[in-house]
C-alpha cells in the first residue's frame, strides 16, 4: 500500500482526508476491535460517505495495512557497513525497539489483543512486522557466523518477554515505562548478558 501519487490533482486535500480516515479508524479499532468496527461507522465519524472511504481503502484489510505500514518505524539502526556486533550495538538495538514499541503502543496492543483472539488479519500483520524486525536485526548479527539466525531468535524472545511483561505490569502507562532510561538499561543489560559475551567485539 503506497500513498496516493504525489502528482494527483487533489494530492494535498486527499492526503488530509486519508489521514483523517486513518485516525478515525485507529480510534474505532482500539475501542471496538477489528471485527466490531465497520467501514460505515468510520465514514460516519469522519463525516464522509461510504463511497469516499472506499475510494481510499477498498476493504477494511486495506485500512489496517495502511495503519500498520504507516506506523512510524524510523530510528532503527542500520548496518550498511556490516560492522561486527558489539555490546554497545546490542544496547542500541534494544533501546530502538523499545522506542518504536512506545511510539506505536496503541496499535501494537490492539494487534496483540486481536491476534490472541486468532483474528487472521491481526496475526498476519503481526507476523509481517516481526519478519521486518527480524530482518533488520539480522543485519547486525550477520558477523556472528553460522548461528547468527539462532542468536536473533534468542534476542527476539528475550525482548518480547521483557516488553510484554512491562505491558502486563504497567498497562496504559507502558509507553512511559519503556521510555524510562533505567528500564531501558535493565533490559539492555539483560540482553547483553544473554548473547554470548566473548563473541561480542570489545565495547568502546
Amino acid at each position: 500500500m503506497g500513498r496516493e501519487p504525489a502528482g494527483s490533482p487533489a494530492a494535498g486535500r486527499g492526503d488530509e482526508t486519508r489521514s483523517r480516515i486513518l485516525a478515525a479508524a485507529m480510534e474505532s479499532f482500539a475501542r471496538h476491535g477489528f471485527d466490531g468496527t465497520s467501514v460505515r461507522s468510520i465514514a460516519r465519524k469522519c463525516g464522509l460517505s461510504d463511497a469516499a472511504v472506499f475510494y481510499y481503502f477498498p476493504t477494511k484489510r486495506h485500512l489496517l495495512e495502511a495503519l500498520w505500514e504507516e506506523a512510524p518505524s524510523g530510528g532503527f539502526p542500520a548496518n550498511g557497513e556490516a560492522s561486527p556486533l558489539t555490546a554497545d550495538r546490542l544496547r542500541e538495538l534494544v533501546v530502538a525497539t523499545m522506542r518504536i514499541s512506545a511510539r506505536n503502543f496503541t496499535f501494537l496492543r490492539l494487534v496483540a489483543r486481536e491476534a490472541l483472539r486468532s483474528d487472521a488479519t491481526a496475526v498476519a500483520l503481526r507476523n509481517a512486522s516481526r519478519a521486518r524486525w527480524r530482518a533488520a536485526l539480522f543485519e547486525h548479527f550477520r558477523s556472528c557466523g553460522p548461528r547468527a539466525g539462532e542468536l536473533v531468535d534468542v534476542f527476539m524472545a528475550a525482548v518480547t518477554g521483557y516488553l510484554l511483561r512491562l505491558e502486563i505490569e504497567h498497562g496504559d502507562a507502558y509507553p512511559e515505562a519503556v521510555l524510562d532510561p533505567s528500564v531501558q538499561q535493565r533490559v539492555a543489560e539483560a540482553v547483553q548478558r544473554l548473547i554470548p559475551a566473548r563473541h561480542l567485539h570489545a565495547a568502546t
Partner: protein
Amino acid sequence: MIANRAGVSDPAVHYYFPTKYDLFRALLVEPEYAVPPVAHSLEEAVEVLGTMFDWWAENAALARVMLAQQLRGDADAIAYLHDGEERYRGEVARILAGAGHPGDPAAVTDLLFHTLSGMLWDAVLAYGNAAADILAQPVFRERVRFAIRCALGLEACCGA
C-alpha cells in the same frame, strides 16, 4: 459450548463452576514437571530446565488464556504470573546451586524467565491454538534449549 465439548450436561458444568469466572479461576494451576527440578551438572541443568519449559509448551492453550487476561489487567491472572515467577525463581536457584553454576542465580533466573516467557508468548500470538503442536517440533525444542544454554552462559557460537 464448554459442556458440549466436555460431553457433559449444562447443569453439570454450572454445578462445578457457577460462573465463567469460577471456571477461569480453576485454570490457575501449578505446573507439574515431568522430572523433579534438581540437577547435578550444568548439562543436566539444561535438560531439566528444558523439561520444565515443556510443561508450558504442552499447556500453551493455558498460557494463551492467561496472557490475554494479564494484558487486560485481570488481577488474578497477574497474581498467577507473579506466584509462578516466584516459584520458578526458587526452583531455578536450587537447580543452579546443585549444578554448581558459578553465576549470579538471580540474574540467570531473570533471563531464563523472560526469554522463555517471550518464546511461549510469541508462539501463542503467532500460532494460536496450534502453538502446542508447533512448540513440540524438534526445531523449537532445540531453540528453547539453545536459549537456556545462552542464559546459563554455556554457549559460544559467535565466530568473532
